[in-house]
């Protein structure tokens, strides 16, 4: 291939025109006549003979013309391919000559596409996809709405209320309840805890409508009081614990020392919308008569299926009218109680959605910044080459060839970037899934979406053509003479082009500011969360859950000494300082509440009783967990099972119910049988129990000895400077040594429990931090590109200034000032955008407002400083301009 692609490659010569065909024929005939005459024929005879031997001249000419036509066509096709091949090799040469440019463009595209593919894949799976059940849009979740009592709109349900709402609402066809169920599997060697749920019988068969892989799901007969103990297991459980036994259905599992019959195995990959990690399910076998008494309780969560053709709004209206009826029918339990009906998918993703939308938003900004960057780089480059292209054009290169070269160059870059972007997208999706906090709904099902990949890939190629075309048309559509004369000062390298590029860079800075502010706010918020006072001391504490099976610990008299013994044995371990027990560990997601009244006060109206979260603790719990006593005393050894009932209350309960009073000595009525009252002996600090964010809920601590439960957490505090994680094996052994049917479940340092509670915030902060970093880099590249090109374009002007006595320093300053002004404009626009977007992130923030001036100012200063930095190299180059050389170069 020749070096100049502007020239047609020499083929086999141009197809002949008619004149040439004729002269070819004439030559032949003349030679023939001469030859024949040489043999003695007269001219006349020779001409006749020559014509006879030649045949029909007209026919010959037509044959030749036909071939010439075909050849012209072939030549066109062939030369098109040759030209493209040349364009490609020309493009490759260009990239080699300027690898920095190609690298930046490719990396920019790869980052943008990769990040987008990964994020869209995750968001699509977690937020947008329909659930994998028949008619998923008919699935919903019913909650108690106790907002009128100052509670949440998504409180759990009582069995009686749920059944009444389900059966009394025509729009709800089916509904089932579920609750946690984590039995200890006591056979097959060690005792292990198995995560699971109990579900009422219709959950799988009629609500979710899923088929088992083997056996059957539950039937109404499985869910009656005193019915058979039955269990459904997950596919994982079947393969891992039951050894994929094809005869597993019908066998027996010992759960909490009670035999359960395995009735079915769920299909592989089945993850129920509630508790996706569940490995087995059983039935609650509730007695409706007993449950009717507990109408005011909140123990269950639900899934409902709407009747065909009924939508959520319609069903909500029906539910609301039923709620009113229930209020009047059961004033005692249902006053000020409504019901919330949510779509199942929306309900599942509600907690994750704001964060994911923010991530999605910022990743779109990132892609825009990336595209702007590529556009800008290609524009800058085209202008840098204006002179070269103009010269080549003037020397006769075909303009279409010049355009196609530029297009091939940018499409090539876009394709390479796109392919790398696909790779980055696959890797990024995997990384995101690995990084995502536990409990992100449906995260386990996330895979790279081929449609998304295809779309992003097409977008890149489109971008390549577009970005390649604009500069190409700019170059080719111009008056060549003037561009030659003015060396591109009017083209994209000139004032108009610079204005476009300046605007693009300012836009880039503005978008980068938005992402950076978001990341900054989240980072500050996360730092606040991490250092927030939890009300206890997680460092040094090791926690685990233990369940005392009913078969071996039938009553409270068996439970009390067992817990005491566990505490004693653990406290005796070397390196353990103190051991306490609490039935609902902070941040474990567990708690139970109860209504109460302050003794001696006027009883509140029905349904207006205040409620408090009840926690049962042993005397050493305060020390083991580092719970702060505010006043009075903590639970002590003397608070024995037969002694006076005692309780501590937290600061929130004190403020709300004993404002300006000393609560110590007052008594609380929890409606216990026999009229028992609890005497308040002290006040403890509020702790973060439900969330690491502010948690102002009334809580009461009772003596474990006086109100024992068979499932509880134990907290062991390691001696100072000792890593509690190192105690794990000894603690496990100590528990199993006491009774082989016991297992220390969910064993983890408390710092890990806190970290898990922070995981969603950490995930979001990390992601946004990453995006912000990438966006910042892109913005810097964009700034650098534009500034350095504009310096290049103004070299002569700068040279003149130098020649007229301007100092190098002031020339450099001029360049830096330009960059700072550009960034400043971008920052101003960006601040406006960020303020508009601020309310979106507000709900994610802790201890920092969405308009936090520190973050805004910090990010603005950072961007301006970075802009100045990006201008430093071009400024240095400008300051070194040798006026003589620049001026002579003309």
């Amino acid at each position, binding site marked *: 291939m020749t070096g100049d692609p502007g020239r047609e490659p020499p083929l*086999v*010569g141009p197809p*002949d025109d008619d004149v*040439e*065909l004729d*002269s*070819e*024929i004439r*030559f*032949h005939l*003349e*030679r*023939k006549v001469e*030859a024949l005459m040489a043999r003695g024929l007269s001219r006349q005879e020779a001409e006749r003979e020559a014509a006879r*031997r*030649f*045949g*029909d*001249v007209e*026919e*010959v000419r037509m*044959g*030749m013309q*036909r*071939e*010439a036509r*075909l*050849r012209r066509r*072939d030549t066109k096709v062939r030369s098109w391919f040759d030209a493209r091949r040349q364009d490609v090799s020309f493009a490759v040469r260009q990239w080699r000559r300027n690898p920095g440019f190609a690298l930046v463009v490719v990396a920019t595209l790869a980052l943008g596409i990769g990040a987008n593919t990964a994020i869209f894949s995750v968001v699509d799976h977690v937020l947008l996809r329909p659930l994998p059940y028949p008619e998923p849009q008919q699935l919903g979740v019913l909650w108690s709405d106790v907002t009128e009592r100052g509670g949440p709109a998504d409180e759990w349900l009582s069995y009686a209320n749920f059944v009444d709402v389900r059966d009394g609402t025509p729009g709800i066809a089916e509904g089932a309840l579920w609750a946690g169920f984590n039995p200890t599997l006591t056979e097959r060697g060690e005792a292990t805890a198995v995560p699971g749920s109990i579900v009422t019988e219709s959950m799988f068969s009629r609500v979710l409508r899923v088929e088992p892989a083997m056996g059957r799901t539950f039937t109404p007969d499985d869910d009656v009081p005193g019915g058979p103990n039955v269990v459904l297991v997950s596919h994982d459980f079947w393969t891992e614990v039951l050894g994929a036994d094809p005869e597993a259905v019908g066998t027996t599992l010992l759960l909490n020392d009670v035999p359960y019959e395995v009735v079915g195995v769920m299909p592989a990959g089945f993850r129920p919308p509630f508790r996706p990690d569940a490995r087995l399910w059983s039935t609650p076998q509730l007695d409706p008569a007993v449950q009717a008494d507990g109408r005011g309780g909140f123990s269950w969560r639900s899934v409902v299926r709407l009747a065909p053709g009924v939508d959520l709004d319609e069903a909500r209206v029906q539910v609301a009218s039923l709620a009113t009826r229930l209020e009047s029918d059961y004033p005692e339990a249902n006053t000020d109680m409504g019901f919330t009906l949510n779509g199942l998918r929306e309900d599942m993703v509600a907690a994750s959605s704001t964060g994911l939308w923010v991530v999605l938003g910022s990743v779109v900004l990132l892609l825009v910044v990336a595209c702007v960057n590529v556009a800008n780089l290609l524009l800058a480059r085209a202008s840098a080459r204006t002179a070269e292209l103009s010269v080549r054009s003037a020397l006769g290169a075909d303009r279409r060839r010049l355009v196609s070269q530029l297009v091939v160059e940018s499409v090539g870059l876009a394709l390479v970037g796109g392919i790398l972007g696909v790779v980055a997208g696959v890797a990024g999706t995997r990384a995101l899934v690995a990084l995502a906090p536990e409990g992100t709904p449906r995260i386990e099902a996330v895979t790279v979406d081929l449609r998304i990949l295809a779309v992003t890939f097409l977008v890149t190629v489109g971008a390549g053509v577009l970005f390649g075309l604009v500069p190409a048309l700019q170059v080719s559509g111009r008056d060549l003479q003037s561009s030659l004369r003015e060396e591109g000062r009017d083209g994209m390298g000139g004032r108009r082009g610079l204005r476009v590029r300046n605007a693009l860079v300012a836009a880039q800075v503005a978008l980068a500011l938005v992402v950076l502010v978001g990341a900054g706010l989240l980072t500050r918020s996360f730092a606040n969360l991490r250092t927030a006072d939890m009300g206890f001391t997680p460092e040094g504490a090791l926690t685990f859950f233990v369940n005392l099976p009913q078969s071996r610990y039938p009553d409270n008299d068996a439970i009390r000494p067992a817990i005491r013994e566990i505490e004693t044995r653990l406290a005796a371990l070397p390196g353990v300082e103190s051991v306490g027990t609490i039935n609902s560990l902070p941040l474990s997601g567990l708690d139970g509440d109860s209504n109460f009244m302050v003794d001696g006060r006027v009883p509140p109206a029905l349904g207006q009783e205040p409620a408090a979260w009840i926690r049962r603790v042993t005397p050493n719990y305060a020390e083991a967990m580092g719970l702060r006593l505010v006043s009075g005393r903590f639970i002590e050894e003397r608070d024995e099972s037969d002694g006076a009932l005692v309780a501590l209350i937290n600061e929130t309960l004190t403020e709300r119910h004993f404002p300006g009073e000393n609560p110590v000595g007052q008594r609380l009525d929890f409606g216990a049988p026999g009229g028992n009252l609890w005497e308040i002996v002290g006040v403890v600090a509020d702790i973060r129990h439900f969330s690491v964010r502010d948690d102002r809920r009334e809580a009461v601590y009772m003596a474990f000895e006086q109100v024992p439960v068979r499932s509880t957490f134990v907290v062991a505090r390691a001696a100072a400077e000792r890593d509690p994680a190192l105690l794990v094996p000894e603690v496990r052994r100590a528990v199993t040594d006491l009774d082989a049917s016991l297992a220390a479940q969910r064993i983890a340092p408390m710092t890990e429990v806190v970290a898990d509670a922070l995981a969603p915030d950490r995930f979001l902060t990390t992601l946004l931090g990453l995006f912000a970093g990438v966006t910042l880099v892109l913005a810097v590249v964009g700034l650098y590109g534009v500034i350095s090109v504009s310096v290049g374009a103004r070299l002569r002007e700068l040279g003149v200034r130098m020649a007229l006595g301007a100092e190098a320093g002031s020339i450099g300053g001029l360049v830096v000032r330009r960059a700072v002004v550009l960034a400043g404009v971008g920052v101003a626009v960006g601040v406006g955008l960020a303020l508009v977007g601020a309310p979106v992130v507000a709900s994610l923030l802790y201890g920092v407002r969405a308009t936090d001036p520190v973050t805004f100012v910090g990010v603005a200063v950072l961007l301006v400083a970075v802009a100045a930095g990006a201008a430093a190299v071009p400024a240095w180059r400008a300051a070194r301009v040798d006026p003589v050389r620049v001026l002579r170069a003309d």
Partner: protein
Amino acid sequence: MTDSLNLLKGTVDVLILRALENGPRHGYGVAEWIEGVTDGTLLLEEGTLYPALHRLQRKRLVEGEWGVSDNNRRAKFYRLTDAGRRRLERDTADWARYARAVGQALGVEGRSGTP
């Protein structure tokens, strides 16, 4: 001339390629060469050479260039390309096999011509 043979269809191409094997010729030269080497056995309508030459040119088996003939007149010379040379070899072999096979079938040649 009366015992001349009409040229079989498709054989013009290979004859032209053969004519150009030892160097460029113009169309008239090709005709001369064919007449010479076959002692006028093959009856060739000389005009048919030209569409054939142009067809070979389109197929890139020969390339053509205007030059000056030995008696100082403008003439178009044809030269074998690499692809043309390869085609000539192949066609020659094919032709030999074909001729042998037909000869064998017609009993002109004995069974000596086993490949």
